[in-house]
């Protein structure tokens, strides 16, 4: 009942501490964008991201999501850069103003593989990470519980409001509201649908803050955690290593090593 992609499953990837996965994702993104070598990103996708997807059993879902999200972007990219790359000199084919150049295709490959790494990595994170555990582990690492509250409740409130919006729609339709028809009628349908939802949100916010206070939200006591997420030493070390590599790649990039 949340706006997440998470699929509950058992796998080595699922069992990783969520913060480890988060750090891995961020490190990978930093590395692929810092290191100006086109096959690095591709290599990471093939040797890190895809195996992770396979091991976690989310390969199928990843494939269908990437076809929907990634493929259109990549196609546009290849078309634009492949066909109109201004610095292209080695021409492979020509269609009027559009020139397919080797340089253009290489450029497209470079950017494309980076974007693919970013998207696929993020998707694997979302598919294998329980948002509740992510919030808990971040809080364990020192994130403010209030921040965790804000993020988690936003994820859950949206579908809850969708349910309420649906109830409102039914109630108004039961009073004869029709959605189809001329634009004027459809515009008139907005107020009876939106107004109860918005008004409801305002009353809710007031009441909810009272209710949250009633459950100690502003308590000065040190926050404890009902759920404890394991954080083995090996993963702690791995996170430091990843972060260091990411930092190093940025430094090296700034020094022009990859130019």
């Amino acid at each position, binding site marked *: 009942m949340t706006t997440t992609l998470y699929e509950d499953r058992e796998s080595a990837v699922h069992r990783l501490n969520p913060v480890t996965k988060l750090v891995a994702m961020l490190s990978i993104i930093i590395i692929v964008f810092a290191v100006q070598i086109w096959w690095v990103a591709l290599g990471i996708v093939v040797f890190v991201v895809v195996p992770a997807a396979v091991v976690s059993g989310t390969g199928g879902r990843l494939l269908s999501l990437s076809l929907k999200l990634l493929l259109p972007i990549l196609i546009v990219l290849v078309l634009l850069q492949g066909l109109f790359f201004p610095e292209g000199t080695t021409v492979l084919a020509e269609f009027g103003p559009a020139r397919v150049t080797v340089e253009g295709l290489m450029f497209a490959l470079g950017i494309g593989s980076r974007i693919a790494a970013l998207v696929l990595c993020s998707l694997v994170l979302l598919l294998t990470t329980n948002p509740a555990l992510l919030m808990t582990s971040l809080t364990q690492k020192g994130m403010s519980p209030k921040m965790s509250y804000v993020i988690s409740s936003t994820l859950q409130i949206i579908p809850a409001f969708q349910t309420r919006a649906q109830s409102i729609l039914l109630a108004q339709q039961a*009073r004869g509201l*029709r959605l189809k028809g001329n634009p004027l009628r459809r515009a008139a349908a907005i107020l*009876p649908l939106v107004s*109860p939802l918005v008004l409801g949100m305002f009353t809710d916010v007031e009441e909810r803050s009272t209710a949250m206070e009633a459950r100690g939200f502003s308590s000065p006591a040190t926050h404890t955690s009902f759920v404890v997420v394991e954080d083995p030493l090996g993963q702690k070390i791995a996170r430091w290593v990843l972060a260091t590599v990411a930092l190093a790649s940025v430094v090296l990039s700034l020094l022009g090593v990859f130019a």
Partner: protein
Amino acid sequence: MEIRFDQVRYSYPSGVEALQGISLTIASGERLAIVGQNGAGKTTLVRHLNGIFRPSHGSVHIGDWATEGRQIADLSERVGYVFQNPDEQLFARTVREDVAFGPKNLGLEGADQESAVAEALALTGLTDHADVHPHHLSLSERKRVAIAAVLAMRTPIVVLDEPTTGQDEFGVRMVAEITQSLARDGRTVIAITHDMDFCAENFERVVVMAQGQIRADGTPADVFTRSDDLERAAVEPPQLMRLAHELRWQKMPVNVEGFVATLASQGPATS
């Protein structure tokens, strides 16, 4: 306008079967109460009346209309549905404007619309509040606005989903009066309720539901004496019937007047 459920089965998308073959005929102008535990299928059943749910098997007819193939807005011409939560439908700046929404959608204009609204407001005791913003009213009053909003649509059938829940005494009496008045007008009234006393006092027919099936169907005096069925449906009889049972009476009173009449006819107490 007769209502007919023919072997209606309904399953939620999750697969849970909420209605297991319901066949029920409700005559024009009948006052019917539906009782049973939460989860028994009461709301699922009545939501078939205005097309919110369509049967997975079987059919529902409102008069000569099958609900299959009709939109909710179409069916709202014949079935007025008062939802439990008034805050999910009140949207206008004044009570009057909100109550006028239904009739307007049904094509009532001008004087017709005005009189439908005025009538509904009078019936629900809201005439003095007509130009008030609904959010300045108490929950009980807002529930009455929701009822008025449906009454103004002048539908031959009115469905009330837990009309007395959360109401104070004045609100409950008002709902009772409204039910009686609708019946006098020849309109069919169907109510879901947990208040057995309200049920016995205002409805001539009671349907007891449990686990997606009808367990009992008859007059209150009839149904509320079927202790086995009631127990299995986790429903308790109205207070006066429990009392009559303790007093070993044969005749089951449905209201205070009936109780007193039976008491009077009993003659002096033996001592």
